[in-house]
């Protein structure tokens, strides 16, 4: 039985460090190659030694696929390709390919320049790594090698995020990466066709959440920001530089414009400008509204949002600041947070998920006193709000995607174990498919039942359909032909052609059978009786009485001779070819029953 094996090296019952190994029909594919936010030691990268201890990775992997540019999905890529060593193809979409190196470079700067780590990948390595990348378009089927093909679907989540279908022959796996089923201000919703994969590997960040409508969320968010600004407070919104940041920028930008507000909005990092540039370019990857209106005005050309300078944080008066990183674990957002935390007029809005151990997670869990480095105690007086803006599918969205794709098996990654458990139960109950949730390093094996396509020659097909009743969609049909397995392909051909191709001579196989009949009459009279009898029974067949005293039913020959010892017994010789086995055996059984007594 063929099988698909899946081993998560990261993101198995965990969020961060996405890296999943899939072997399907003898092909090995690595899905994503991310880093973990929570760790600064070896655990931040996936353990590539799992794949091979000493050989080159290129020999073991057929390709690497990156779903989108978030660091927990692509952060380990230069390390993997340049330091561990991989020369095979890396696939990602065009926007991902454009934006990914900026983020990697930023990440490298923070780790090497700020934290002073050595033995980290260099700028040159990032460049070399990007040279191995093959960019793909949406819905473009890319032939990795002769058997393995991949295809990207729109995933929503961030600009250029894609879901990938990996297909070998009839077996297929769909990996969703991160996706979003509700469209937002700048991106559309994820979409899959009814591709019925053998396995769907889906993220499950919000396995237990069903979110309110996005309009309520947006309204609440705007209201909170507006109120704080009117009070004269400052609003800090920690974000990751790309993704949600743009969404919130568009939201605030349009709101500011509509309400004619004057309070300044700042965006903290320099890399945004570069990235925004790409957002302006890849308009086709955004939602309907932006695509429709960009001719008049590109939505990513912000009027109200300016670049942030460190000195601005001490300015009096209200302001809104977007600062990175999103989980308040380091960098500018943490600095600003420390400055503003003491004033109850201020507010921090966490727009997304926070990994355990980060400051963001702590304040959201209600901690009001934080211990910072150097034994300093920081008292948090500012308001802390949480507003789920992260573009992941919620439980209903995940179920909806499963319904769209109709997979035979589901595998959950990228989520917390307890929540996965719940969703797993729901999926099994709802769709009656088996659902898996392997931990990191744990291999899941899924048995598949692939269909094997067989080519049939048109001549044979036409010939066979011509026989018998008209085709009926609801009934299976029996066909005769020869199955030819040659050069890794299957073909159904007519016996003659098969013989010809294989260079074999045709052998005829005939079955003969003797049937004894008690009949005192003369031979030719017996033959006549048999003839009449058969003619009466087999109305649909051509029964002929030949002049030489034999009977043919289609191609079956019947001859009658008197028994050498007993003249009263006639011996009927029935002979048929292998092809007429069905009719021949029927005839013999018919004759064995004897002739009807009252012969006409």
């Amino acid at each position, binding site marked *: 039985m063929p099988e698909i094996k899946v081993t998560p090296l990261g993101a198995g019952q965990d969020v961060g460090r996405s890296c999943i190994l899939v072997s399907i029909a003898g092909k090995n594919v690595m899905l994503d190659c991310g880093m973990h936010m929570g760790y600064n030691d070896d655990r931040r990268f996936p353990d590539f030694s799992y794949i091979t201890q000493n050989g080159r990775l290129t020999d073991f992997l057929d390709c690497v696929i990156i779903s989108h540019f978030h660091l927990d999905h692509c952060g380990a890529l230069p390390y993997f390709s340049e330091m561990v060593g991989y020369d095979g193809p890396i696939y990602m979409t065009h926007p991902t390919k454009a934006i990914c190196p900026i983020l990697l470079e930023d990440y490298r700067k923070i780790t090497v320049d700020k934290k002073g780590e050595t033995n980290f990948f260099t700028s040159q390595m990032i460049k070399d790594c990007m040279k191995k990348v093959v960019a793909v378009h949406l819905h473009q089927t890319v032939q990795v090698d002769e058997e393995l093909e991949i295809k990207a679907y729109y995933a929503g989540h961030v600009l250029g995020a894609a879901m990938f279908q990996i297909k070998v022959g009839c077996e297929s796996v769909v990996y969703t990466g991160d996706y979003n089923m509700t469209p937002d201000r700048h991106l559309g919703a994820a979409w899959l066709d009814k591709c019925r994969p053998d396995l769907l590997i889906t993220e499950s960040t919000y396995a237990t*959440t*069903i979110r309110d409508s996005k309009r309520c969320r947006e309204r609440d968010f705007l209201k909170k920001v507006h109120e704080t600004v009117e009070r004269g407070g400052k609003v800090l919104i920690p974000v990751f530089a790309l993704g949600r940041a743009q969404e919130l920028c568009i939201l605030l930008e349009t709101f500011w414009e509509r309400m004619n507000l004057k309070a300044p909005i700042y965006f903290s990092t320099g890399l945004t400008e570069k990235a925004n540039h790409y957002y302006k370019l890849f308009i086709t990857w955004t939602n309907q509204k932006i695509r429709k209106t960009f001719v008049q005005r590109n939505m990513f050309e912000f009027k109200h949002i300016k670049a942030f300078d460190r000195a601005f944080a001490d300015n009096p008066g209200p302001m809104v600041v977007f600062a990175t990183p999103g989980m308040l674990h380091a960098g500018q957002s943490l600095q600003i947070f420390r400055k503003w935390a003491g004033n109850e007029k201020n507010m921090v809005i966490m727009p997304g998920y926070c990994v355990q151990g980060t400051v963001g997670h702590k304040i959201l869990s209600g901690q009001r006193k934080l211990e910072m480095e150097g034994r300093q105690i920081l008292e948090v007086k500012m308001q802390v709000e949480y507003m789920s803006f992260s573009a992941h599918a919620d439980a209903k969205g995940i179920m*909806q995607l499963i319904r769209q794709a109709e997979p035979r098996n589901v595998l959950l990654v990228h989520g917390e174990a307890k929540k996965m458990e719940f969703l797993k139960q729901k999926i099994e109950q709802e769709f009656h498919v088996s659902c898996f949730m392997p931990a990191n390093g744990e291999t899941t094996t899924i048995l598949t039942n692939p269909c094997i396509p067989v080519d049939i020659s048109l001549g044979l097909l036409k010939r066979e359909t011509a026989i018998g009743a008209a085709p009926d969609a609801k009934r299976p049909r029996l066909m005769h032909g020869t199955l030819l397995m040659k050069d890794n392909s299957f073909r159904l051909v007519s016996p003659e052609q098969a013989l010809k191709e294989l260079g074999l001579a045709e052998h005829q196989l005939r079955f003969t059978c003797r049937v004894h009949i008690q009949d005192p009459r003369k031979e030719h009279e017996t033959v006549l009786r048999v003839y009449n009898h058969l003619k009466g029974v087999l109305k649909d067949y051509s029964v002929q009485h030949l002049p030489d005293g034999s009977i043919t039913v289609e191609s079956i020959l019947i001859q009658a001779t008197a028994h050498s010892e007993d003249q009263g017994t006639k011996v009927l010789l029935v002979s048929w070819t292998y092809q007429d086995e069905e009719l021949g055996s029927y005839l013999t059984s018919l004759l064995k029953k004897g002739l009807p007594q009252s012969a006409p």
Partner: protein
Amino acid sequence: MAAHLKKRVYEEFTKVVQQQHEDLSTKKLRLTKPSKSAALHVDLCKATSPADALQYLLQFARKPVEVESVEGVVRILLEHYYKENDASVRLKIASLLGLLSKTAGFSPDCIMDDAINTLQNEKSHQVLAQLLDTLLVIGTKLPDNPSVRMRLVEVACKHLTDSSHGVRNKCLQLIGCLGPVEKGVAKEAESQAARDVQKIIGDHFNDQDPRVRTAAIKAMLQLHERGLKLQQAIYSQACKLLADDYEQVRSAAVQLIWVLSQLYPESIVPIPSSNEEIRLVDDAFGKICHMVSDGSWVVRVQAAKLLGSMQQVSSHFLEQTLDKKLMSDLRRKRTAHERAKELYSSGEFSSGRKWGDDAPKEEIDTGAVNLIESGACGAFVHGLEDEMYEVRIAAVEALCMLAQSSPSFAEKCLDFLVDMFNDEIEEVRLQSIHTMRKISNNITLREDQLDTVLAVLEDSSRDIREALHELLCCTNVSTKEGIHLALVELLKNLTKYPTDRESIWKCLKFLGSRHPTLVLPLVPELLSTHPFFDTPEPDMDDPAYIAVLVLIFNAAKSCPTMPALFSDHTFRHYAYLRDSLSHLVPPLRLPGRKLVSSAVSPSITPHEDPSQQFLHQSLERVYNFQHLDPRGIQELLEFTIRDLQRLGELQSELAGMADFTATYLQCQLLLIKALQEKLWNVAAPLYLKQNALASAAAKQILEETYKMEFMYSGVESRQVVIIHHMRLQAKALQLIVTARTTRGVEPLFGMCEKFLQEVDSFQRCFISELPQMQGSFVDKLLDLMPRLVTSKPSEVVKILQTTLRQSTFLHLPLPEQLHRATANIIEPTGESDNPLRFTSGLVVALDVDATLEHVQDPQGTVKVQVLYPDGQAQLIHPKPADFRNPGPGRHRLITQVYLSHTAWTEPCQIEVRLLLAYNSNRSKASTRAPKSSWSESLEALPPPENGIEGTIPFSKPVKVYIMPKPARR
């Protein structure tokens, strides 16, 4: 068409036709028509290759064929068909057969047998499909011939087993269109095809080809449309089709389910996987809701649209569509216990609004939580959040329809609608504002909702703002803060967009009259009065101050205590506004002041409104004038017309009525003047001037009658007949005048005949109204008709003259509602001194913005006219999309007019005005001629033009200063 045909062909074939006609005893000249069949035959015989033949056929298809020669053409085509080996030519012939059978007046039963015969030997699937299509056309042309239809259906059934999807498609389509609808017929004809057509079609729901499946569902829907009651058994089949792989199938299946839910709303269907049962309409509702989250947006739009029309659905199902979180299996009847459980289990999910509320709790019964099969849950929440705005619009429309029928649902969906005001696409915002207006009777806005609504007033789109004003006109606000907020926002809007003035005032008028008690406590603040100090008198011309006053005065109408709070200048301003903006400021009973309008006491019902009484009285006076001398009549008419015109100016509700009657009286006055004795007693050549007067009068009457007929909405046939009668009189007058001025009888012959024809057609059109026209001109004329037909023109004229003088004045009955079409050009304002400069020879676009009231079918009738100083006039037809419909009876034209001219030396003014086009053919009395189907696909035939087309200017002209500069080389 004759040009294309060879002369030789003419000679050979047309003669025969002509001789046949000569046998008939008609004396009229008959135009010879070249026989189509002959030409075609020759062409086809000449064709050497299939490509040639195809070319001939294509050319042939471009021209219509007369009814008489259709059959001949068909024979030739068929003959060629049998000989032809090339499938593409046969295909074209088959399609031509279908086209020809569509010819109006041709009965295709004679070619049916041949068409069926051709089916027998046809091998090509495409040709087969085309032939079936032809049969379908033939069948539809013979609606009252059941045996033919039966035969065709039988043929179709035979071909249902064909291996090509195209053929099966067409067969199903044919069965759907022609299958027997009545049960009785099916029993009588005991042929095989008479089996239940529904079953035959139903069998193809599982066809292997999705196109055939779609066709099968469509055929079923077709049967339904033709009146066959579909069987309930199809429902379960249709439900399975909802999970089809192909979007067309799903889309059609959604429709089918909807149809069934309307047919059997109350039947009970079991819920799979449980032993409970629910109403079919509820089940169908759940299923269609489910499709709102389908993968294909086409299906989503379809589903969202249909939801709106499922009004029989139970209320608790309906309300779930707005709730996403209730995830339990809500399809069963809910007991209190179950509901408690649901609450618990719904709490199991986090809402995403608070951090950490998704911490795992102990699960009691996760089995009850059902994520996908929950049917109706949150369908609208999904629909309103959809990626495609088409789906969102459909969802808003559906919400609107459902909310109109269910007040409790309206209350619940309010939040969602208000949210939609912030949609990123303008059309969606607009649609949701309109929706809100439509359901505003059922709802009261909370303050926070009002806040969101009012925020949209700052929208830069004029359409949105005006829609919002409309909405505020009919909204209920719950608190005085709400009113205040609305006022403040509207004033803000006014300063930002001063052009919205009228619309904002109107909005405040309704806001005030709806909420008098809420306005009352706000009055001192709004008027900034102070208990001790006199405050400065505000500027009377300030639009914002007027806006405040409009609000207060309208509230004061039903709140008698309010005037006590006014200061002196307020009263003065009231008097001024009451006069200048009478449509916005209602009459008030103010203490200690004599007011003109205080005559209107509230006890008088609108029916006894004195102005209406006045109207009727003056009219009655006029109709009884017979006893007066001619001079008195003229004076009376003149006075009455003047009175009526003034009345129309004062009372806007009666304006239409007053103008209409005034115009009618004006016509009569003109007629009387023109017929004055002394004019006619003198020899004609000497009194050319008088003749000019009479002919001018006739012309003016004609014009006025067209105005009366086409410019007023609400004119009934009773009025139309009187108008036509007046027109007839004018034409008679014209005839008389012409007879007196022209010498010789020759031209009179034609005129007389034409006039008599008109009388004849008048009689035909208004036969039912004639009895009420005793003693009128036409009544007398019809009595004299036999004499008129035989007599000479001079005699006719004499008779006409006497009849015209003796005829009585017809009483014009007034309809209930009569409105005059008016137009007001808002933009260009005509005030600009800066000429619009452009290079001559190029075009400049002029924005035109106008409001139209009481115009029926403005897309077809309203034109823009541009008059250049050199007398050149240009008529522009605005695009249908340029008309918006903000409210009943009102339209708004926002369009661009392209101007161009040769260079001028200095700037000059052009005139822009709106015209109302009419066509007497399209008059309300006659029905429209059916379009011929042939001309749809081919070159349009010139429409039968015997009606008079013309235009009526109905707006004040606006002057625009332009300056075409010479082009620089």
